[in-house]
């Protein structure tokens, strides 16, 4: 595949359009020679040819980076929509930011979300029987990665109590 065609697609478009017109003229002349009336000759020529615009489009697309052009159009559309509705945009961006922030980037660092949440809510409000044995997920000293496992290992830590609203949010 040569790349030149991407640079010359307008030229190709005109060229092929002229070619298609020449083809139709030839077909119409043939039909008239067979004794059709001019209007009927023209109609039959177009029926046999199909839609010339579709043909042009097909060739134009062959000469285009369709994927990249569509992506560019989608991005411009998305930007326009966000600008039109800044409140929605702010909420969407905040949600995404929190979502991305709460995904552990490496096992060593506690995540943004859990650290924010633990300082603001959990430490203050969790009902604790023995504060020295309370652990927070994400903390490296927690022995097992999930809450389910934790409940099945008696003796390693106190039964974990979660404010239910918070658990489902996390």
């Amino acid at each position, binding site marked *: *595949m040569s790349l030149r065609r991407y640079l010359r697609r307008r030229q190709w478009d005109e060229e092929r359009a002229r*070619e298609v017109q020449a083809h139709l003229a030839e077909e119409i002349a043939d039909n008239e020679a067979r004794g059709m009336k001019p209007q009927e000759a023209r109609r039959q020529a177009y029926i*046999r040819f199909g839609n010339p615009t579709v043909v042009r489009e097909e060739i134009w697309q062959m000469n285009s980076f369709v994927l990249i052009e569509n992506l560019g159009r989608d991005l411009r559309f998305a930007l326009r929509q966000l600008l039109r509705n800044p409140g929605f945009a702010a909420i969407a961006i905040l949600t995404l930011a929190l979502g991305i922030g709460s995904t552990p980037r490496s096992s060593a660092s506690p995540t943004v979300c859990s650290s924010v949440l633990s300082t603001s809510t959990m430490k203050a409000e969790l009902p604790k029987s023995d504060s020295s044995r309370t652990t927070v997920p994400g903390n490296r000293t927690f022995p097992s990665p999930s809450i389910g496992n934790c409940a099945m290992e008696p003796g390693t830590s106190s039964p974990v109590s979660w404010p239910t609203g918070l658990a489902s949010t996390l």
Partner: protein
Amino acid sequence: MVRSKKDQELLLGTLDMLVLQTLRMGAAHGHTIAHVIEHTSEEVLQIEQGSLYPALHRLEDRGWVSSYWGTSENNRRARFYRLTAAGRRRLAVETHRWQAMVEAIGRVLGSAARVAEEE
């Protein structure tokens, strides 16, 4: 219209092959190519003539045909297509592949026909 992607590929490949074969007899413009294919197939293959042009464009892009503006039999300006050496080689490959496929399908259908007769 063409129904599925697979169908489309099969038809496109076939049309390319038919166009290349037609051009073996000499340079021709799109209108002639369409009519030659229709006549030599005894009107069994009716191509939507428009679909010829994307096919020709693709063939030219791959270097299998070359084109130039000339004058048609009826003294009209028309774009003529000529088979290139690469196109000739391509046609040989395509023809060989097509015949192998037709034979294979023929064998399968042949055995199916025998089974049907025995029943």
